[in-house]
């Protein structure tokens, strides 16, 4: 019995270690390659450690494409979208969770129904609309469609608000507070955990978004990182793996930081939004 438990334990650890190794190896290889000189990159068998360590690839990256600008673009549009979604979707969520108005249920169902629409379906008409607005190659093209909230964020926040007991608003109501005061002073502080989850997920989603910015932006200076490094990879620098890996490292790094800061929210968010609730 004891030996069987030992064998099981060893087997479990082997599975997990192998999994962890496979999950991390590409990241390791990305960082290592980005620090190598070309002579060390194109050799067989591959060298596991860079020698000498060089930052040449990072320097090259900033001269091949306007990388600093693209990094700023990505940060700017992502943060703006996240801020907009948190504010406007929590407002919408408040209306669905606390206000009584005619047509509330059908409207909520309509919001839910839009979650079933894959983004590819709206891609072409939304592109035409954005072009009509004259937004092509501007920040508005990327921010505009998402800034005023999304059905998903509104839905999640509404679900969370419904779990807040209404008694907590009673005192404010007796004091004669209006809906705006109740929303700002009572509800918003209480939904902070849900805001964190929605914020982190939106940040990751919009930082990584590719197809939409690919379609609405074509000038180098306005590109976001995902499109920037994909363009670099399909240019004549496409075989300069050190530079491509340097670009990948810097694209992934902010996400890794956000992930480690908000790991608990992410895992709990998925476990609850994915199935339970």
């Amino acid at each position, binding site marked *: 019995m004891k030996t069987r438990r030992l064998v099981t334990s060893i087997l479990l650890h082997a599975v997990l270690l192998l999994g962890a190794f496979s999950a991390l190896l590409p990241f390791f290889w990305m960082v290592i390659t980005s620090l190598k000189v070309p002579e060390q990159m194109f050799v067989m068998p591959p060298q596991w450690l860079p020698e000498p360590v060089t930052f040449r690839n990072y320097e090259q990256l900033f001269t091949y494409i306007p990388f600093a600008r693209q990094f700023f673009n990505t940060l700017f549009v992502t943060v703006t979208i996240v801020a907009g979604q948190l504010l406007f979707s929590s407002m*919408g969520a408040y209306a669905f969770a606390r206000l009584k108005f005619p047509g509330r249920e059908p409207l909520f169902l309509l919001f839910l129904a839009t979650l079933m629409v894959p983004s590819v379906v709206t891609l072409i008409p939304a592109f035409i609309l954005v072009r009509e607005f004259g937004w092509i190659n501007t920040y508005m093209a990327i921010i505009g469609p998402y800034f005023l909230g999304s059905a998903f964020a509104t839905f999640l926040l509404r679900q969370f608000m419904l779990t807040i007991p209404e008694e907590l608003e009673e005192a404010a109501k007796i004091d004669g507070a209006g809906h705006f005061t109740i929303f700002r002073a009572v509800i918003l502080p209480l939904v902070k955990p849900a805001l964190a989850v929605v914020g982190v997920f939106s940040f990751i989603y919009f930082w990584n978004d590719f197809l939409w910015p690919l379609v609405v932006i074509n000038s180098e200076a306005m590109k976001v990182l995902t499109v920037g490094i994909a363009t670099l990879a399909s240019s004549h620098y496409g075989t300069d793996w050190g530079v491509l890996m340097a670009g990948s490292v810097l694209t992934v790094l902010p996400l890794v930081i956000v992930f480690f800061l908000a790991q608990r929210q992410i895992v709990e968010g998925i476990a609850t939004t994915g199935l339970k609730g």
Partner: protein
Amino acid sequence: MSVAVATSISPPRRLSLAMRRDWLPALVFLLPNLVSIGLFTLIPVVAGFFLSFTSWDMLSDPQWIGLDNYVRMLSDRQFWNSLGNTLVYTLIVIPGGLALSLLLALALNSKIKGTAIYQAIFFLPYVSSTVAIALVWKWIYHPDYGVLNSILGFFGIAGVDWLTNRGTALGSVAVVQIWQTAGYNMVLFLAGLRAIPKEYYEAAKLDGSTPFQTFWSITVPLLMPTIFFVTTTSIIASFQVFNLIYVMTSGGPGTSTKVYVYYLWESGFSFFKMGYASALAYVLFVIILAVTLLQVRFLGRNRAMGA
């Protein structure tokens, strides 16, 4: 509480008063959302439907051509090719992804040390940007200097041109999707496993059933809703694969990895066949909607919607 009770037990006249009082703030609170969803989801869904009955190159005015786009699809070899590639891709991703994520979840569920660290590591690929991931894997798959062929060489196995070989390209990309989403699915499975009452396992142990029997007669049946949820969401995601293909193969070699959304994007934004691309989008919409409705049917609205 008193207000809530008052509205629910008072006569309808009072209720309509509350409704009349609330509609203006409701409108103000909802207006931003309504603009966003109306302008960038609802109108495009309707507009896309009408566009799919037109021929439009974005230079001249759109021409109404009725069902021609849909009829043309039937004899469009590229359409069937992309649909077939997408299907094959999905058929690789689903079983591979399910098995891997379930295996990891089972291993983590056994009260092992360092669960949180493992969970974080497995999850890292999922939060990383697909474009960067695709580039790294393209480098790993490199026929001459890639790590993969080097490792295989170590075991005396000859290298393969993973991404430039018709036989391996689609599968190689599918492996990256499995790798990237395993951690996400694992978290879902872990939540599902933890929801199974311990008593069932204790009862099985008393009956002297082997771990293998326990797995098939207790874990799998009770995990069915999670398995179903993970399967359907993975199907929906696989049917929309684009980023990995764009970066790793651009649909090649030949058209062997040209998947549905890649063909759609190419039709619309390389060949400016906006009407045809809209028709392609609507066919995909119907396919995905069918899977979604299946999910709603079996799991109930709230679960399928992710609540």
